[in-house]
């Protein structure tokens, strides 16, 4: 192997003389083996690859061949490829360097495009055009505010007190539906239109707008009473009774129905 490598790297400048001692160590062993056949093959090999350099030294070459169990044809092909790989294309860049750089380049392009893909990936579920949402879907209902201090004035909708309370509740409802991933985009507005009797029931109305296409599916599934009701109910279950104070809404008291 050593000899072979040396031959390759030094190319034509290599001196055949130096190779002889390397092989001579095993000279005896070589002589025992049959030479006749290999000689013929060897000549073909010599002419194929290393040219005159190794041709002079049959003994060494054959010895190497025997050790490596390579057929001469194989060796010659490998030699030729190695030679070609070492060709200088330009400046000091050899062919093998160029090939490796090319592979790196391809790899980098793949990685880059994958990264780019994940960065600019647009989620189709997050894209919608609100201007196409025109078909209304309304829900009416009521809930109870058990912690609220009851005053007479609340029952007249025009009074300041009831206006402030209605405003706060409207805001609460709007926030809750706007932050909903599934319903937020369809939500239009929430209204509080009356406070009733001593238990302080608040009547509300919710308006959703949906696109004309797929409206049946939306009506029956996403914007169904079940879904709109449960998103509200879930919000009420999550609220902490002590934190919400006066504005606490009793989850069990929530009633909602679809307005036709």
């Amino acid at each position, binding site marked *: 192997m050593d000899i072979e490598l040396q031959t390759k790297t030094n190319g034509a400048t290599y001196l055949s003389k130096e190779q002889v001692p390397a092989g001579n160590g095993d000279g005896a062993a070589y002589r025992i083996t049959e030479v006749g056949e290999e000689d013929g093959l060897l000549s073909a090999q010599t002419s194929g690859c290393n040219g005159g350099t190794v041709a002079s030294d049959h003994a060494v070459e054959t010895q190497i061949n025997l050790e490596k169990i390579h057929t001469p044809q194989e060796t010659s092909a490998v030699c030729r490829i190695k030679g070609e790989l070492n060709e200088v294309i330009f400046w000091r860049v050899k062919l093998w360097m160029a090939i490796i750089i090319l592979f790196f380049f391809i790899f980098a392009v793949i990685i880059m495009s994958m990264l780019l*893909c*994940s960065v600019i990936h647009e989620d*189709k*579920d997050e894209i919608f055009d609100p201007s196409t949402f025109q078909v209304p879907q309304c829900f009416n209902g009521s809930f109870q505010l058990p912690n609220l201090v009851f005053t007479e004035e609340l029952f007249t909708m025009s009074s300041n007190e009831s206006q402030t309370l209605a405003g706060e509740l409207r805001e609460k409802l709007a926030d809750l539906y706007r932050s909903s*991933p599934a319903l937020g985009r369809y939500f239009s507005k929430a209204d509080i239109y009356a406070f009733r009797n001593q238990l302080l029931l608040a009547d509300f109305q919710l308006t959703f707008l949906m696109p004309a296409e797929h409206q049946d599916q939306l009506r029956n*599934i996403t914007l169904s009473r079940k879904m709109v009701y*449960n998103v509200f*109910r*879930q919000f009420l*279950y999550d609220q902490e009774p002590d934190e919400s104070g006066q504005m606490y809404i009793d989850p069990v008291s929530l009633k909602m129905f679809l307005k036709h």
Partner: protein
Amino acid sequence: MLSCRLLLLLGLLLLCKGQEESGGGESCDNFTDLNLSHCFMGTVLYVRLLLYTRSNLDCGRELDHHHPSSQPLFNVSRPTAFVIHGYRPTGAPPIWIDHLVQLLAEQEDMNVIVVDWNKGAANLNYFTAVTYTRDAAHNLTGFIETMQEEGASLSSVHLLGVSLGAHLAGFVGANLHGKIGRITGLDPAGPMFTSAIPEERLDPTDAMFVDVLHTDMDSFGLRGTHGHIDFYANGGADQPGCPKTIFSGKAYFVCDHQRSMFLFLCALNRTCSLTGYPCSSYSHFLEGRCLQCEAFKPAPCPVLGYDMSQWRDTLLKLGQTRAFFSTTSTLPYRKMSYRVDMVTWNQYLRWGVVYIRLHSGKNFTEARIDHKQLRFEQYTSSRLLAQFDEDLQQVHKISMRINTGNVIGPRYKIRLLRIRFTPLERPERPLMCRFDIILEENMEVAFRPLPCGSGL
């Protein structure tokens, strides 16, 4: 190694106990205790019948094969259960035998007869033991016929066979033309029976009712269906907690096979109620496709154990039923199962595996439903079976994570309209729901479940 020593110790203890009792005036007949040298030499079949009743639970009495009534404790008007062991490669008495006798006697006031064919079963050569099963069955058939002559009814006879003993019970049943009340087969032996025709192994025609439990079909157990109902624990092959490599010694060989007995003991003890779900295969069961038992209404799904009366008639009508369940690795074996239904509003179809954790205070228990990718299709309910090792009474928080198997590229989101957890086997517990959540790939999402409310 440890288990070997334990077995040895247990064997010694049993021996000591036996001697003590025999020294106390009354003579107890105990299970034949042989050792390895007997197995090496080979034993010739000798069947002993040891009677245990509620009044002599710790002290067996050997019955005369031809005059069983000569033993005053034997009452033919009571039901009779025969316990039949299998191949005994070490010759030691089975470790479960006393426990099983105790538990059977607890179920009903009956005669428990241990069929001790240890001489015959204790042979290094398994094939000798297999050939002896026919002779032992012949012997036992003769005894049951004598019992019948003395006034016992065949329908009140119950044979419990373990491994090779299950086939032995089958042969007895076949000899008596299937008129025996019931045969319970605990992991019927596989070697030498894999290609046997029904006459050469346990099959449903051997008794009026045959129930079978499989735990080791891939080595010592037998594949297929052999009873009116076949229970397959964890699919019937590999049991959780059993060693996977030969380095664990003896346990590697016997753990799966023995599990059938431990599961049955646990079921008799009523410490674990193991519900079997009738299904065509274990994978269908794991996919949550077989979680209802319409055929058995108003009874629930069949439960492994002694009392099968609720399901018996339906099972006989159905012919052969395969029932599946999963267990944990240790007592009480049962898992807490939930049916989980999810509806997504994602426009595009996605596939993914789901990991769910239930939290109760600081405790949590996890189910990894990753044996198959789950399909998430818009507005379509995706169902899965989530089985948890621990049963948490009050679930305060649920956390979930999904994985679509997407290594590179964007993180997908699964947007759920609703997720619902239905506790199986515990109908009194409330359903848990959550609405309007987004599961982002590989991100844990935690939420507080709320009662589902009416109509959901």
